[in-house]
């Protein structure tokens, strides 16, 4: 995808920013190209490349009792496409009731920090290179072990402009490699996410996945119950994502956050520090949100104490707070909540985490987690792709997968030790996050699976 660049995107938007029928206009322009090579049963079975874009036009009209707001989007990034979107947004604004909680358009003249990285080798990665990486991954597996997974490269641009003078532009890249290795009765998984494809090592990932296949062969069944656990980064990330909505001003407003009214209180173990940081070099991120508000590091939990909450403009307005740069393009239901989570690492290596468990479980990854009770932060899901029994401080073999049903805050309260070497892991719907492996003194498993 050839880049448009800031000036071309700004030039597209300017004609619709000033119309007589609007008291304020905001335009968000995005362009992205995602190429994904997918393999299963040790062959490439799907291989796709998609170039798309979006122009989202938000029109604001003053009205007694508030303002009227209309929004329309198109992927026709042409002057005609934007004019039509603006016309539709204006018509919607004229037809709707005043919105008392409209958060307002961001003010111009804002300074934006640096975020993410723009790697041309990732943005323009040819399909031949992705296929060769798949070959490297598969060659890293043992005989009799099958591989499945993806090699994905993305390049994206985003510009936010409004009639108050906001002019924000960002270009960035992202790459992801993952591999599931499958043997006769066991599996292993490894994943890497970075801003540049060159920063990922397929050979290392394949070896990690392959090692787990051998380690987990002939899995035994253990009964459900409370176990000490060691969670790999991928499992930790899933729990953190499921807690993320608790930090959203919207959840506090609606009464569904377990952290409502608990700012400054100890809510989990002192070893837990969790931030939202779109500016971290560890994560692919952008320096502003979908409303043109600058992003920044937000401390959500510091040494176990509940900290800041996060807002888009509308939820900030509703509770009398200031936007924190957490607006996403609607209809994304995650708008207003943190989506660039990082948990601070500790000083234990993985062997030390395992070494501290007399009898417990080691979890590579969770599957299909869902919130059961938001206010209690209770989540259910199952383990997958590498679950092991720990006895006397060492992994002694694989176990069949189990279902857990547990409060995330309770789990974070049970943190005994935090690993040194964290990883960036992707979770569907939530995006990328960085977390270390953890050792918990107790984690509740409620049933077993058949595999």
């Amino acid at each position, binding site marked *: 995808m050839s880049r448009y660049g800031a000036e071309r995107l700004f030039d597209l938007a300017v004609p619709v920013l000033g119309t007589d029928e609007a008291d304020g206009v905001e335009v968000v322009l995005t362009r992205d190209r995602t190429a994904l090579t997918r393999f299963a049963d040790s062959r490439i079975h799907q291989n796709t490349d998609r170039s798309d874009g979006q122009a989202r036009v938000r029109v604001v009209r003053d009205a007694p009792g508030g303002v009227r707001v209309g929004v329309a989007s198109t992927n026709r990034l042409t002057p005609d496409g934007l004019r039509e979107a603006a016309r539709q947004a204006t018509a919607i604004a004229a037809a709707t009731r005043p919105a008392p909680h409209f958060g307002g358009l961001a003010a111009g003249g804002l300074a934006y920090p640096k975020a993410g990285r723009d790697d041309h080798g990732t943005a323009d990665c040819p399909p031949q290179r992705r296929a060769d990486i798949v070959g490297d991954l598969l060659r890293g597996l043992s005989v009799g072990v099958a591989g499945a997974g993806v090699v994905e490269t993305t390049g994206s641009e985003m510009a936010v402009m409004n009639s108050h003078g906001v002019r924000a532009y960002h270009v960035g890249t992202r790459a992801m490699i993952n591999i599931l290795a499958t043997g006769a009765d066991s599996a292993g998984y490894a994943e890497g996410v970075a801003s540049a494809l060159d920063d990922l090592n397929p050979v290392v990932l394949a070896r990690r996945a392959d090692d787990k296949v051998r380690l987990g062969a002939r899995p035994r069944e253990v009964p459900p119950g409370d176990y000490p656990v060691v969670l790999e980064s991928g499992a930790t990330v899933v729990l953190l994502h499921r807690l993320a909505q608790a930090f959203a001003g919207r959840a506090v407003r609606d009464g569904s956050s377990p952290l409502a009214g608990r700012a400054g209180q100890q809510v989990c173990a002192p070893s837990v520090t969790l931030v939202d940081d779109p500016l971290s070099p560890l994560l692919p991120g952008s320096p502003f949100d979908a409303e043109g508000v600058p992003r920044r590091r937000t401390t959500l939990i510091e040494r176990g104490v509940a900290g800041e909450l996060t807002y888009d403009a509308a939820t900030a307005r509703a509770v009398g707070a200031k936007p924190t740069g957490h607006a996403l393009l609607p209809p994304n239901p995650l708008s207003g909540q943190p989506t660039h989570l990082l948990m601070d690492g500790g000083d234990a290596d993985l062997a030390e985490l395992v070494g501290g468990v007399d009898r417990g479980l080691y979890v590579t990854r969770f599957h299909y987690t869902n919130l059961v009770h938001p206010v209690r932060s209770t989540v259910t899901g199952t383990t997958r792709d590498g679950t092991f029994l720990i006895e006397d401080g060492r992994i002694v073999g694989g176990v069949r997968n189990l279902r857990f049903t547990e409060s995330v805050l309770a789990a974070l309260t049970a943190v005994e030790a935090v690993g040194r070497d964290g990883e960036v892991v992707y979770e569907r719907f939530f995006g990328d996050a960085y977390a270390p492996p953890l050792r918990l003194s107790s984690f509740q498993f*409620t049933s077993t699976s058949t595999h």
Partner: protein
Amino acid sequence: MDRTELAELALTEVTALGPAFADVRAVAEDSESIDVRDDRVERATRTASRGVGVRVLVDGAWGFAATADEDGAAVRRTARLAVEIARASGRVSGAPVRLDDTPPACGTYTTPHVVDPLTVPVAEKAEYLLRATEAARTVAGVSFVEGTTDAWRRHTVYRSTEGAAVAQTVLQVGGGLAAFAVGGGEVQRRSYPTSFRGQFVTGGWEEILALDLPGHAASTAREAVALLAAPDLPVGAATTVVLDSSQLAMQIHESIGHPLELDRILGMERAYAGGSFVRPDDRGRLRYAAPLVSVTADATTRNGLGTFGYDDEGVPAGSAPIIADGLLVGFLTNRETAALLGGISNGTARADSWGSIPLIRMNNVSLHPGPDEDVDRADIVADTRAGFLLSTNRSWSIDDQRTNFQFGCEAAYEISHGQLGRLYRNPTYAGRTIDFWRSCDALGGARDWRIWSVPICGKGQPSQVARVAHGASTGRFRATVGVR
């Protein structure tokens, strides 16, 4: 250029490169989404998305490229890129992909409807929702109320090198209401007619008016308030559960629909969405459910959210038995996977946009009604000595082989000696797929049967979201309740 010209331009370009097979979808989709909360419109959005996707098979390997740029040069470039990608796939290929012998279809289809939902003014829709939220807010104890409506109109022109030529326009529309009661560390939600933005169908705006959201608002709100005062469903052992038809639809989705997608069974989704405990040779052998249970995948069901004229490989919509009298008899297939088993596709290849490849997706995967047409939920409750009636989905989870599941519902009522008793909040139930379906011993009849929607079914990489449906009536099973 219109959709037909774009599709034919792309097909001409790609055909010149000599692939064994190619198909093209030129798609224009318009959509609208409105959210109201209490007395205000929170969001009203129109969206337009247009583009062309080109899929090719070269030397037995797939390539796909898609662009939103409808300039002729960009479309031709995209066609050539698809071939380049397919050649790259050939660097790590297995057995060559073969397609089934589905004859190329030619035809047109438009969703039957009275009023195209995208022609109804935003203000009219918003006022309809606001009448509902305002009616719900008259109930004491309600904290806030949300109303939503969504609509899509997708026009697709399909062409293939085999000669298929299809044009179809599918209209989908949804609407719903949710009342919330908050207090004492609890948030209780009651939804009408079902959760997660309500009920979705193929059809016109008249289908949403027929839901009569304002007329059901107060009773929905009263149930939310009652739930806030109710106790938690106690932690229990295996017991009898009666599932209302909307929750049973979700159960069908997770523990019948997904595990019987043949791409999952063959391992194509294993690394991401997961696999299936079912094996290809289970067909005709596996006693999946009790004899009372039969399931069909039917893309022609009236108003079903998964109803269409042709799938995204140009296969005409049809009806395929999946479970017959408890026996597994079929899978959901596309042209590639059907050929591997020596059959032909049952037309379930669907893409969520012009920019996505078609994957095996559910259409309307529906449970047949029970044998007695007049049996309904009240009859099944009256026939139950002890257990719980669970209503309306709140959460869902199932393992990566689709065996171990756990669902949460909005409300549960105790059943004692055929009578509904105490109301409980935060109910959950759990079990294993085969044990659960084999335990089915009562199903509501045709009058109790209804087609329900699941509008947010995730699968594939890049992730796709499909809109599917499941017909179900009230059902009775054994499961473990109160897991937490």
